């Protein structure tokens, strides 16, 4: 089952975030917005993240779903979302 570190590594890889060290990030830091300590991601990054989760875990995201909206809060929230949804949908990777 995926954990915060693996998910952070996935984000750093698919978003080309060279400045972020996946081993030392704060899993509670906000992904979006320009607040201090956040990742500063934008809506185009959200599209990339959705594609990566589909590719890696077979999860198809929908924006009208409350679970999806809250999943983008932080690495931890996204990890929890993957843990809950990868189990229910046929995954291509694990």
């Amino acid at each position, binding site marked *: 089952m995926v954990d915060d570190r693996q998910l952070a590594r996935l984000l750093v890889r698919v978003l*080309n975030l060279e*400045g972020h060290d996946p081993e030392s990030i704060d899993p509670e830091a906000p992904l979006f917005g320009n607040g201090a300590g956040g990742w500063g991601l*934008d809506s185009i990054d959200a599209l990339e993240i959705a594609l990566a989760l589909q590719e890696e875990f077979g999860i*198809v995201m*929908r*924006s009208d779903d409350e679970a*999806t909206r809250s999943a983008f809060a932080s690495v931890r929230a996204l990890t929890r979302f993957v843990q809950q949804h990868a189990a229910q949908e046929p995954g291509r990777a694990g």
Partner: protein
Amino acid sequence: MSRLPLIEPYRPDAPLIIQGAGTVSQAGFVAQASALAGTLPQARFALNLCESRGAFMLGFAAALLRGQTCLLPPDRSRQTVSALRASHRDSCVLADFAWPGAVRVPPPAAGARWSDAVPTIAAAQVATLAFTSGSTGVPAQHAKTWQQLAVHARLLSGRLGFAGASIVATVPPQHLFGLETTVMSAFAAGAVSSAARPFFARDVAQALAQADRPRLLVTTPVHLDALVRAGLELPELDGVVSATAPLPAGLAQAAERLLGAPVHEVYGSTESGGLATRRTVADAAWLPLPGVSLRIAAGVAVAAGPHLAAEVALADLLEPAGGGRFRLLGRSGDLLKVAGKRMSLADLGQKLRAIPGVVDAVVFRPTPAQGDGLVGRPAALVVAPGLDERQILQALGAAVDPAFLPRPLRRVARLPRNDVGKLPQAALERMLGE
């Protein structure tokens, strides 16, 4: 003073908006817009922040009926909203979410009150002020009258087949391209607009499934790329329309294959509106809309058309391509002239992106500081995880004259694209200076 209908052709019981699994009729919409108009505060401008296209259209129509001008904010950030309210003091705010002091606009309801007569708007009323995102410099405002918007919608519709079609879009209605293709197409050209604002591929599939055929998808290269890569099975499509940034030919081909529908691009600007189209897989040249003419005056391309009050200078370099068509050569401010040699920034950017290992790149001209002796030397931001600056410059130096090599060339993790995929000059300069 001449007046034009809010909706034309007006067919009271025909659908105007697809709202979830139902539709809002033209007459139902008119009744709700008239009711909302009566509750708006007295103001000259209405800043329309509504996220849902249905609420946006209701707020827009209500403001028009009150004689107000809709401000189309380039984004919904607090800074943008306060800057617009400061520069347009006599304004009210319309929103379909909680916003301090805003008039709350409800989504248009399906089974609403009936209205047999269509209200009219003064043809010369300034309907919208659009603000450029600043990829060519400082933000500027551009006014469109109701007549200009309506005339333009019919030109574009004639080319792209909006009449009688359902339109699903990933672009916001506040962007002029989004307004023309998804709002004015419904008010002035007989299209039915989906209120949905689909984002992920699954959302697009769902919004398309709720729309009757013929159905068109209005999108941008960034969203189309994500849709193609997701590879989901989509309801049958009858056409795709893309704008806001150049669509790579390879992506257009992949999209046509996956979606089984022609992909058209619209060329234009916030100043001029959409001016020409092309089917990207079939033609590199652009065909102007009927009545639109382009000519070169004193080295600058200018456009005229039935929807423009005066000629508009374009920021691009064009050349005639026969049969009334034209080819785009890049932005005119982009032409680099060094030691008698010429090259466009667009061309240089393309050569940079073609280097193996370069994922994304942009070449631009930083605003020169006063007394800067290096005017003309371009700068570059490059995303290339496996290469260093020296290797990139070496590879580029093999393809272009050394006089054109960008300085500085900075490697970055990602380019500062905004939410329609554009690269505002200010953001590029900020990143270069970091």
